[in-house]
């Protein structure tokens, strides 16, 4: 290991490739790596800790970049379930489409998805910013606690169901809103945040003024029997 050409799933195992990236030898000065032939393997780049750049040339399976800290991961393909689940910091950029539960429970950092993503995007998210250039599936931002979900396209059914303090900005239309999720008034601060996210995602086609803001009505924060049909 240690050589660029060996980060190749045709030549090496997941364990060896992850182990190499999890224990970078900084004396060697190299900070940029390329993974070849990922072939939909699962848990690629899970548990990275250091400020490095990894480019993955192809499609990845489940939990790519899971629990990531600091690393910047680019996927030149599609990604499976649980992309960047519980990530703490760093950046994951997917150039294709992404399956369900992208950014689930993630505490920090940024995910950028150039295509569409499936259901439960940002489920229970705890501080991450997720930028989706396409649309998201049903139950996205379910029980989302903190952080921002920026959707340039549309959203499926029950957007933001049982949402806590995550803020959703959407340029398209949600098919329906989930329990306790309501449209909220856009403030100057919101527009600045949207501009910041659009700039991070290098999105120029849509202006911040196109977005609508959704968040929690905070009516389900403490149990009341009269709200029982909402649960």
């Amino acid at each position, binding site marked *: 290991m240690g050589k660029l050409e060996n980060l190749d799933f045709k030549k090496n195992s997941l364990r060896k490739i992850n182990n190499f990236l999890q224990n970078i030898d900084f004396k060697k000065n190299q900070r940029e790596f390329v993974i070849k032939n990922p072939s939909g393997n699962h*848990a690629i780049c899970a548990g990275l800790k250091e400020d490095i750049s990894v480019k993955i040339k192809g499609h990845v399976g*489940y939990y790519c970049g899971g629990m990531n800290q600091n690393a910047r991961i680019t996927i030149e393909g599609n990604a499976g379930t649980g992309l960047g*689940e519980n990530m703490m910091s760093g950046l994951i950029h997917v150039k294709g489409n992404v399956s369900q539960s992208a950014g689930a429970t993630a505490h920090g950092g940024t995910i950028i998805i150039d295509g569409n993503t499936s259901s439960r995007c940002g*489920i229970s998210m705890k501080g991450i910013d997720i930028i989706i250039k396409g649309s998201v599936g049903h139950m996205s931002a379910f029980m989302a606690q903190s952080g921002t979900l920026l959707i340039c396209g549309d959203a499926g059914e029950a957007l933001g169901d049982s949402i806590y303090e995550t803020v959703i900005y959407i340029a398209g239309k949600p098919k329906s809103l989930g329990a306790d999720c309501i449209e909220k008034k856009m403030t100057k601060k919101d527009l600045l945040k949207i501009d910041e996210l659009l700039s991070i995602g290098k999105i120029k086609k849509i202006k911040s003024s196109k977005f609508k803001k959704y968040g929690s009505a905070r009516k389900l*924060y403490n149990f009341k029997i009269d709200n029982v049909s909402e649960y």
Partner: protein
Amino acid sequence: MKNKRKKNITKPRQSWTFDEYTNSEIRRAAETGIYDIRGGGSKRKLPHFDDLLFLGASMSRYPLEGYREKCSTDVTLGTRFAKKPIKLKIPITIAGMSFGALSGPAKEALGRGASIAGTSTTTGDGGMTKEERSQSKTLVYQLLPSRYGMNPDDLRKADAIEVVIGQGAKPGGGGMLLGQKISDRVAEMRTLPKGVDQRSACRHPDWTGPDDLAIKITELREITQWNVPIFVKIAGARPYYDTALAIKAGADVVVLDGMQGGTAATQEVFIENVGQPTLACIRPAVDALQDLNVHREVQLIISGGIRNGADVSKALALGADAVSIGSAAMIAIGDNDPKWEKEYNKLGSTAGAYDDWHEGNDPAGISTQNPKLMKRLDPKKAGKKLSNYLKVMTLEAQTIARACGKNDLHNLEPEDLCALTVEAAAMARVPLAGTSWIPGSDQKIF
């Protein structure tokens, strides 16, 4: 003519169906409009370890000399895939109980007691606290659906990881921590606003079936470099299939929690009506391990109503590798102590019955985040009590094992047991006392 006075009056008859408790619950529901939430496990009278007896040695079996001849108690968990399995001196672990549900000092007490006795503690929903990590020599870190406080640095600090799928008190249910217990520190660890009712999800956010779980376990192993064991905790729902699927998904250890297992808070109707008793779960789980040829390679930990060394030895005789205690550990450190009786009365309860743990007013200072109440628990003294209790349980189990002629607790076997009731005989698959009859089995024991 004067009427004759009746001599025989029919005694007022209380209904078995509408008993005092039932009626009081109907009145309470009618008044408040909310279901009853409480902590703890099932309070019903269920078939349990009390319904089993050890036969002991006599002419056909030779006993070992108490105190002189060795009877091993140690157990190694995670021998299947982990590079660093955990080695415990006793087969009794401390079950997952969250910081949030319990106070910081209570978590510290559990860590201290377990470390002295040579066993592990388990985190719970709400993350790893420094109190517990610093005091607990062997710490199991739970991965729960909510992922409150979950972070990779803590994951790498853990000695084992427990993927929680179910809890005996509420198979198929998520957690609940009501607003009054969400203090600043609890709120921060869970990334929630202070004072909200925290509803933990009942399903994991990023996987669904056993095929997904196998990939999830691979990810956890990749992050922790295949060092630490991965436990899978299931509730006593369908023990045969759930154990088989946990094994298939790659678990090193299966933790099986029956319906007497406690919870910090859930609906009474859930606790008492969903799931199977602990006794009913053990044999089907062991069947799954044996059918897949991994009994003893994948370890089985049984929890839910373990109270003493007899329970420990009975669970082990039925095929478990270890047991886990939660409610009993809380009692050992001071929960429901009669010395707080006056305060329990003020809360509308009585010592032994107090289960409103979710309200955060625990007089014993254990299931609370109230700084004044928390101070009542001295973690050092409480830790010592827990270690005493764990040692007593171990000695009791050894006493029984020696009487059965076993030089290791793990050599106890179903053949050492008989049952007092038909139900227990059927569940434990041991003969009814005085007979060779195992209900539901063609097997004859002579």
